[in-house]
Structure formats: structure tokens, C-alpha cells
């Protein structure tokens, strides 16, 4: 159970959140099918630091940007999705 520092609610268990994966910009609607299918189905599944999206569904209901280390699960930055990084 991760501990996530919600900028609105404070330290909360990760079971209050839903995990939405790595943040990848949505391609243009007219982009070619290969681009779209890569976006939809291919995850980079890397290591090291990743910026990902979490939804604090059982809390403030805000979508958050979370920087998490995929090797250690360390979390170093959590901000509202709309806040400039």
C-alpha cells in the first residue's frame, strides 16, 4: 500500500486512489491508426522515474500528477493535474 501525498488532502493510502498509468499525451484524433494503437495498447513499462496519473476518487476527486520511481516506489512529487510542472 503506497502512501501518496495528496496536495489537497495530505498523506493518504493508495487504495483511496485509482491508478491511471503513465501520462502520455493523447494523439490528435486524425493521427494514423498505428499511432493510436500505440497510444492505446503499448505501455513503455520502463524503470526509474515516471510521471503518472492518479485519481483521488475516495478523497478530493482531483486528478493528480505523481512522480514515482518504478524501481523503489519512491514518490517525489505530487501535484494537481492542472498545476504547471
Amino acid at each position, binding site marked *: *500500500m*503506497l*502512501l501518496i501525498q495528496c496536495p489537497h488532502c495530505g498523506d493518504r*493510502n493508495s487504495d483511496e486512489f*485509482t491508478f491511471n498509468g503513465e501520462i502520455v499525451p*493523447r*494523439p490528435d*484524433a*486524425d*493521427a494514423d*491508426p498505428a499511432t*493510436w*494503437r500505440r497510444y*492505446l*495498447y503499448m505501455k513503455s513499462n520502463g524503470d526509474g522515474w515516471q510521471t503518472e*496519473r492518479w*485519481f483521488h*476518487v475516495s478523497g478530493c*476527486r*482531483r*486528478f493528480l500528477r505523481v512522480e514515482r520511481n518504478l524501481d*523503489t*516506489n519512491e514518490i517525489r512529487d505530487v501535484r494537481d*493535474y*492542472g498545476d504547471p510542472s
Partner: protein
Amino acid sequence: MSQHRLGARPGEVIDRDQPVEFKWNGKTVRGFEGDTIASALAANGVRVFSRSFKYHRPRGILTATYHDPNVIVQVGEDPNVRGAHQRIEAGMDVRSQNTWPSLGFDVKTVNRLVGRFLSPGFYYKTFIRPQSLWPTYAKVLSRFAAGGDVDPNHAPANFDHRYAHVDVLVAGGGPAGMAAAIAAADGGASVMLVEEEHDLGGHLRYGNSQDLEDLRELKTSVMTRPNIEVLTDSVVSGRFDHNWVSVVQRTIGHVEERLIQARVGALVVAAGTLERPYVFEGNDLPGVMLSTAVRRLINLHAVKPGDRAVVMTSNELGDAAITDLESAGVDVTKVLDARQGETVVKVSGGRRVKTVADSSGNTHRADLLVMAAGWTTPTSLLNMAGDRPKYSPEAARYLPLQLPDNVMVTGGMAGSGSTNELVDHGSATGAEAARRTKGEEPQPVPKLRPGIQPELYRSSTHGFVDYSEDVTSKDLISAAREGYDSMELAKRYTTVGMGPVQGKVEAVNAVAIHGEAVDNSLLETATTTWRPPYAPIRLGTLAGRKYEPVRYSAIQDWHEAYGYTPILAGQWVRPDHYGDPAAEVNAVRNGVGIIDVSPLGKIDLRGTDVPRLLEFVYVNKWSRLDVGKVRYGVMCAEDGVIMDDGVTGRLADDHYMMTTTSSGAGSVWNWLDDWLQTGFPSWDVRMTAVTDGWTSINVAGPRSRELVSRLTDIDLHPGSFGYMEVRTGTVAGIPGCFVWRIGFTGELSYEIHSPANHGLELWEALLRAGHDLGVTPFGLEAQRIMRLEKGHFIVGQDTDGLSQAHGFGVDWAIKMDKPDFAGKPELRFQAEHGEYPRLVAIQTLDPEVVPDEACQIISETGGIIGRVTSSRMSPTLGRSIALAQVEHTSAAPGTRINIRLTDGKTVTASVLQQHAHFDPDGSRLRA
């Protein structure tokens, strides 16, 4: 007093004034309060407690702890109880396991006679061919399998969960653990001290008088500190990310077991050491015991473990066992000092030790062989914290290497020392743990000495490494020779470490002996991964209390009073029917009925950009929806899969009400929030989930207009309130209602939404006002029948996680000329490829046969080409009707398909032109 029970011992934990009677294999035996099952039986002269897993060899007490592989018993209806840990209770029915037909005479010992020893992989190799015989093999082999009896009628029991947030959690209540708890508490931390045994003290409990004095002092100090919570007979079963720690609390009384989940500032691991056996021929005979086992029996339970002992010692605690044995009147006939190179080579005997052969070639007559061969550090929690403990040849054990700042280690796991040294290290660790939880910069704690212990793993002979799984040193070496040269592979092949004690007794011996065969040392041989839980946990404990919240509509009391049959739909308790669903259908089709549809998801949307949002999340067009109109919409996820459907109406200029399926209410709400927050944050849309704020009642049937018109001033004339329109107004005297004219049932119907606190009032008003019309309440089942007659799909029943919108009869709604919407790119891809399954309405040729939902549709060649997703007997049509998903090649109208029924028979059905079985033109709902 029994000849095996000793006189009073200074540290004994039994209460001689409290005799306890219990049953062992049907016979009544007597122990004392405080005895474990093992100690009480040993005091009664029992030496054989079980038969081994594969060879059915007699086995006796080995470790006398929770982790004793040989003393696992059935207690009442509970199998696999740890007999060397579980205390006796009056009337307990204790039986030995895996001993068909009896503990004394065991026919399965034939295994031993036939094959002498079964080689690793014996079962795999022997019973693999012919495959057709496997069911027969399985039946026979299962009689030989280990484990107790599970009672399928086991009475439900209470289990519990607790959440705790402590600054410092100390795993292990020995001297170092207690000292750490005291120092952390004095540093201002809240502390939880968890001890696996029945009392604090660790090895001091069965130590000498100085040990007992030290223990009293430490324990008093712990108990007088209000900020230390002590949990005994409890175990830290896992350490997870960000110091999330699980503790299983066993003896609580009113619940069977409790799972504590704690977010801890610092975890101090003080789990001590486990003594490990030495491997030699006959090392599993009853009467071969660890030095700590005999000290526990003598000092804690006043049990004499034997009459004549040979002791192999290699350390101070082994030496102390000699003193204890002598004080208990055991004749120590020979001491083999492994530090001087003297070891045991072979133990012989039938059902217990008779002679001991040593490395000098001498043979000694004895009924007890005590071995002090070294220590295993149970590093599980450290491994779970990311450490890779390093083997120290001087200490002959693994020691911690690198831990995160919030996990610290003390006591025997960190090194060796006198009680004072251990206490000092514990104190320093506890104080530092408390400092760290305050966010102070971590400082190192001075290290303990690693300790000195000769490396003793195997004698010149072969013996058992894993007592639970009957794996010998020979098996490990032959596995290595067969090519299983990685420990991880050898473990799986030989099953070493996979039995009930999960490596605690055997893991290091296994690594050492396997390493011997692959010609590298322990240092190069990776240990196997330690995963949670550290000790067994009952499934009920993980499940916790049965606690499943449900939701009720405002009309629930009426439904109950009216004798409804409830059904759980998502989280909602809903009326399935009030007695006869078919009669409810007929009442609606021929007159008027009312149904409570309050669980329908409702989302209130306001703002100038609501049309843009609707245009984006629905596949159809929303840009021109006038005030007073409602529209049906389908939502797709970005992968083109149908996510939800429902009706949205425009109540005022910038005020919309969206409805969702009952089960989709939450996910649609999240989906809209997602787009509004991450996609289009500048849009002017204010969204409120209002499902519970409104009571929703659908009034359906040809006479619904007549009924509703009696209660409202809203003009219901078809010319002014048409199909797919919405009006706001007062209904039954309740202001602020909105009414929309839609029809899931296929009949003329009005869905009235009133403020929830007036829901029951509205329901009762409708029943009163429609009494002469025969107004009938109907439930979910009647509604499901009617929607199936109309061919409306239910998202999640007729569709699934792979249902792409194009196959589901909503092509008309998908507007690819919109510049963008959720799912558009993938829907475009689907449209171009076209080979998705289709939803079709089907009718069996025999109108009486209703295929069960989920029955498969079979092709000519026997392949599966689809399944029935909904089916019912239609009261309206008097025949069987269904919806089904089929491959696109079988979806054309008129296609004959074969359905394999639950009983194995096949029934033929025909694909319809359209989804609706009844009134395909929709003339009834437009009336």
C-alpha cells in the same frame, strides 16, 4: 506425577494448580495450563507426533516452536495447527495428521520399503504417462497427501481487521526488541511491540537465573510504559511499500484472528535467530532435537526430553543445554564439541533414537541426540524491505547489508553479544528509530559483532534437509547433477522449502548443501526470495468481517412491507418482483405499472460548455438539443468498447440532467471528471452527482398518461409532450419534479423524478390515484423481460469488456463526421476492419426451450462462435426469446445457429432481422 514431568523449574510457564484434560487420538491425556500440545504430550511420554509427508517416517519434536515441522496436528475441525505453539485447552480434540490408518501402524511406510527413497521428481516422472490414467493415479495419490481434514460444514467464525498508525513497530520481543521498544517510547514515539510467542523474552525465557532476572527487569520496564502496546502470540507477517506492515494477532478470544495493518514510521526488526538442524543419517528420528528445543521443554514446561543424551554443541547456547539437561536428571553420556571437530555421523533406531555414531568412530547408546549446529536469521522482513542479506562465514549466517532508513535491525539478526550488549544495541536502535520518525537526519547505530560459529551443515552421511517435504541432502545433490544448478530451480524441482514451515528450518541448509554440489559457496548461491506472509495466516483473517454496505431507495420500506423479493444489483437492494413477474409484465403491457428506478445514475450538469462535453463523451451528436428534449446516447471508452448508455435531457438553457446505467453511475461520473480536469479544464461545466438526490419512478403502460395526468398540471397531451421530451413541474403536489417520456419497457411511459425525500409520497400517490386503473408495482425482473422483448441491450450483460460499439446495433448513433470524441479513432479502425462480433436477437425454433444465459453457440465443426447473453420466456409473445453475441459470419438475419444447452443437448435458433422481438416499429411507446 508422570515420570517425564520434572519438579518445579524457576522459569516454568505451566500452572501446576490448573490441570487441563484433552484428547490425543481419542485418548484422554492430562497437562497443565500453559502447556503446549507438544509439551503436554511429551510429559505423557508421547514421542511420535506425526508421520512424514512422503515416506511416512515417524517424527517427533524437533524445534519445539511454532515452526516445528513435525508437530502439526488437527485440533477439532481445524487442520494444520502448530502443536508446539498452540496451548492446550480443556476438552480439545487433538489428532495426528497424515497417518492413515494410525500413528502407530502406518501402511504408507510401504513407500519406504518399495522404493527405499523416492528420487526428486519421482511423481512427475512416474505418473506422467499414459495421460489417460492420470485421474486414477490422482485418486490413489491423494490418499497419501499430507494435511488434515477440512470440514466443509465449518461454522462461520469472526475475524477482524484493525488499522494502526504507530511511530515505531518492533518485530520481536526478545531482549533487544524490548530494549528498542523502551528506548523508542522514551524518545517520545508511540510503539507497538509484537512477539510471536506467548510471552515476551525471547531466549531469556528458557535461560538461566541471570537471564530470568534480566527478563523480569526488561518486561517490567516495557509494561510500565503507556506508549508501548504489547501484542503477544502475534506475528509481523509482511512489510510492504512505504512501511505498510501487516501483523497477525492470534489469541484475542472473541475473534479467531485479527489482521492489523499499520503504517509505521520506523520498523525495527528484532526477530532473533532460529536454530537449525544438522544433516546426517537418521537426523529425523524421534529423539533428535535442537538444543533450544530441549531447553524449552525443560525450562518452560518442566518436561524431561529423554533419559540418556548425546549432545553435539558448537556454541555457548549449546553448552547451556548440557547444563540444563544435567539439571533435569538426563544422563549426558557424551558431548561432541564441533568446535574441536567432533560431530555426529549417524543416528540409528526404529521409532526413536537408540544409538549415536560420532566422527571418531565411537557409538553411544542414547535415546536423545541434541544438536547445536548454528543459527538461521529469519531475514524475511529485511528481504521484503529490499535488503539482500550477506552471508558471513565467521558467523555461519546471513546478516543485514543495506536497509532503507525506515527499517532498522537489532538483536540476533544484527549480530551476537551478551544480554547486555544486545540490550545496548536494542536501546541505541530504538532511540534512533524514534529520532528518525521525527524527520531527523538518520545516524548510524554502532554495529554488533557478527559472532563466531563454525560452519556446520552436513556430516559425511546424508539426511533430511526439509522435514516437511521429506527432501534429503541426496535429493538436492542429485537435482544439481540433473542440471538444476540454480537454487530457485532446485527448490521447485525438489520442493525443498515449500512445505508448511516455508524454509525457516531448512532454507540455509538447503542452500549450503546445494552449493556443495554445484561447486560454489553459499556466498555465490543466491537465497530464495522471501515473500509475505512470514507465518501462515487464515483466509478468514484476510477476508475480515463480512461487511458489505448496500444502498436503498427512499421507497425501500414500502417494498419490504409489500413482500418484495429483493435482488442485489450493484450496490443497490432492489425489488426483483412482488410475487409474479410474468403477471407484472402483463399488467404493464395491458394497463399501467410503476417501478422504482431510483438507482438510475443521475448527473446534474450546468454551464455553457455542457453541449461540448456531451458531444465529446457520447458517440452521437448533441450540439442541437433544445430545452425540453431528451436524447439517448452511447458512451465508448477510448478503445471503442461500449462503456455506458443512457438518456440526457436539457431542463433549461444551461442545465442538463444526464442519466447513466445504475451500475455505471460511478464510472461515468469519474469519466466526465477525467475529461473536465485533464482534457478540457477551461470549459464551463459544473457537475454534481445527484443519484441519491432524486427518487425515480417509471410509470409504464398504455394507461400511464391517464394515471399521471391525474396528478400533475404538466400538459401530457401527445401534441405538447412528445416522445423523448422532458417537462418540469409539480407532480402529486410535489414541486420541482422533472418528467421525461421515454420507454425502456417499450410502452408509453413517463419517468418521474422527484426530490428523494418525497419519493415514497409520490409512489403512494400513484398507487392511490391509479387504483381504479389496476396500477401494478413491478420489479426488475419484469422490466428485464420487457426490455428483452424490445431488444434493448444492458451494458455489462449483453456487452462485455470487448464489445466494440459497431457490433451492437448502435451504428446509427456513431457519428464519424464529428471532429473528435472519446473512442472515435478506434471506432474508425473497427469500422474499416469489421470483423467484430455482433449482438443479435435470436429465437429458438422450439418456442418452449429457453437456453440459459451464457450457453455457447456452436459452429458446424464444433467451435464456439458466440454465446447467449440474455434469455427469457416472453409472457407477451408466449415463446422463448434471447439476445446473443455471435461472430459476424453468423449474424445475418435468418441464419440458423446451434446453441449447446446446459444439459449438453443442442437447440437450433434463428437470427432475427432486428433486436426487437416485440413491436419493432415502436408504435406503442410513441402513442
